[in-house]
């Protein structure tokens, strides 16, 4: 990729200034911060709210906040939310209608809530997830106008990954710890004897203009090399991996696998995996009326293929068993997503593994499906 301007270096004061400048320009700054025993995404009023000195210890069904001696701000992964909470919010009003006493009905489209967002600390896996949702929600004939408005106005400041978690597997989904194009600025955090600093790569004109207002220096070769080295090292430290096979074909060929029964015995069908997934986009719409019956509103809200109502047709759900619902989710994510949107739906962020209460691990499940297929073939 051709850089718009040479890379720069900022220190933690520079990061403070960056947030100050964003706020002064009327941006709603969203970034990681510590709340309720986790590193959540929330609106920030200052860079001091970033999770300096906090990391995470992850496992299937387990997330713990742990202190970090190096004081790093972006050395964490698989938080409980993703950026879809802002771009594709859990609830959104689509339109309302009113009826006059004479019986005339008028419809009013809802103005999408579209603050001018700046997302600070978007990890490379999440950049890819945003790109996938862009395709799903704005790439087809019928754009989700609310998403489109929020997305076009959003400024993305990536934080490259130097600290993958135990549930991370982006490399095996074709991604990696380095930020792909699509960001306005990309930070790579370095904490060493030369201090706490961030290599800043510029990805857009707007990113360049933003950096102009922030104290920075031109990147030196040592900082650039250190940053590259840290990101390259992260590539080899993924906690997990999907099997290196054609997953689209594997899942496509596995609808009758016995493994789905084993999985269903463990699955709570609670829906958490889909709700934390940064690419899961499904919504339902509900009409609500008020007590007078003269005012009605249509709301869109997150739905999930684990909800029985999701496949409810004339008096019953089509996918009533846990087996059929889990199979639907994983097969769509890794296989039929290709048919529908031209790529896999998984970026390897590991959230579905960490936030599944019973710790179902999709890398393990896919490996089991593969083993089952191999056994079948041998027979």
């Amino acid at each position, binding site marked *: 990729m051709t850089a718009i301007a040479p890379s720069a270096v900022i220190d933690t004061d520079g990061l403070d200034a960056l947030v100050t400048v964003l706020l002064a320009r009327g941006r709603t700054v969203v970034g990681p911060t510590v709340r309720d025993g986790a590193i959540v995404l929330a609106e920030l009023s200052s860079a001091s709210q970033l999770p300096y000195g906090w990391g995470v210890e992850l496992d299937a*069904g387990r997330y713990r906040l742990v202190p970090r001696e190096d004081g790093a701000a972006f050395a964490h992964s698989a938080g409980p939310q993703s950026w879809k909470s802002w771009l594709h919010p859990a609830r959104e009003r689509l339109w309302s209608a009113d009826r006059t006493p004479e019986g005339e009905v008028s419809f009013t489209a809802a103005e999408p809530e579209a603050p001018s967002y700046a997302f600070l600390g978007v990890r490379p896996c999440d950049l890819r997830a945003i790109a996938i949702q862009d395709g799903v929600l704005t790439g087809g004939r019928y754009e989700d106008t609310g998403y489109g408005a929020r997305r076009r106005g959003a400024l993305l400041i990536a934080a490259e990954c130097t600290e993958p978690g135990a549930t991370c597997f982006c490399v095996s989904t074709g991604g990696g710890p380095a930020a792909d194009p699509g960001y306005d600025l990309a930070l790579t955090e370095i904490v060493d004897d030369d201090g706490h600093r961030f290599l800043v790569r510029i990805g857009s004109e707007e990113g360049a203009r933003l950096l102009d207002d922030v104290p920075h220096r031109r990147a030196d070769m040592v900082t650039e090399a250190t940053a590259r080295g840290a990101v390259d090292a992260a590539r080899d430290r993924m906690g997990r991996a999907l099997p290196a096979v054609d997953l689209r074909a594997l899942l496509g060929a596995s609808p009758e696998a016995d493994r789905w029964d084993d999985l269903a015995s463990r699955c709570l069908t609670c829906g958490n995996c889909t709700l934390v997934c940064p690419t899961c986009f499904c919504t339902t719409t509900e009409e609500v009326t008020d007590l007078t019956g003269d005012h009605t509103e249509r709301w869109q809200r997150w739905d999930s293929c684990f909800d029985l109502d999701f496949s409810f047709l004339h008096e019953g759900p089509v996918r009533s068993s*846990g087996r059929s619902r889990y199979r639907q989710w994983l097969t769509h994510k890794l296989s039929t997503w290709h048919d529908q949107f031209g790529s896999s739906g998984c970026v390897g962020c590991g959230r579905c593994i960490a936030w599944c209460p019973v710790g179902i691990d999709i890398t393990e499940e896919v490996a089991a499906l593969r083993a089952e297929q191999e056994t079948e073939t041998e027979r």
Partner: protein
Amino acid sequence: MSAPKLAVFKLASCDGCQLTLLNCEDELLALAGAVEISHFLEASSAVLPGPYDLTLVEGSVTTAEDAERVRAIRAASRHLVTIGACATAGGIQALRNLADVDEYRRTVYAHPEYISALATSTPVSDHVDVDFELRGCPVDRRQFLEVITAFLAGRKPDVPNHSVCFECKRRGTVCVTVAHGTPCLGPVTHAGCGALCPAYRRGCFGCFGPSGSVNLPALIPLLRRDGLDEDAVERFLHTFNTAAFDKELRS
């Protein structure tokens, strides 16, 4: 066209669900404008005879008299909606279903011979056809208004039967089980409260009863891991919706 007649009846219960309706202070005037409140003893001693267009029943059936009465209520009602854990699942008093009522009676009352009670506490739907069951202990105010509004408009109430986890995730609450190791019934509990307890860092204790899709054998090992012994797990599941969770346990 005259306003639809609304009736509220109570069987064995604490009155908390009826109070939820009275607590809808901002909407009460609109409600009173939309319906004719014809029988609601908690609010008014003025009583109008049936038939009623929409009847709300709180409480479970615990006496032979109430079993009769609920049939009369059904006969006088065009739509019958049960409200709360007692009416929809037998309530906390359904603990008697797993015990010896005579022994309870002898232990608790000085004159047990004055007490006439059935051996079980059962939901209204065990006795008569019910048009809709609204869960909760107590019911959620927002859902309560939604159900009344939906029946007035002749549409299906927007009351999803998925898990409490959906509500935690929608409101951005950090999972108390995954992040804190707190025992939580959220994954098996019917949504509706807005995931109130986890938002205050407490585990869900299941007051809305089982969700539409429950896998207790998968959840129990987590409750054990997070510090509940076998008895504590039993107690956790045997609270406000004791009969409903017990049925899931044995299914």
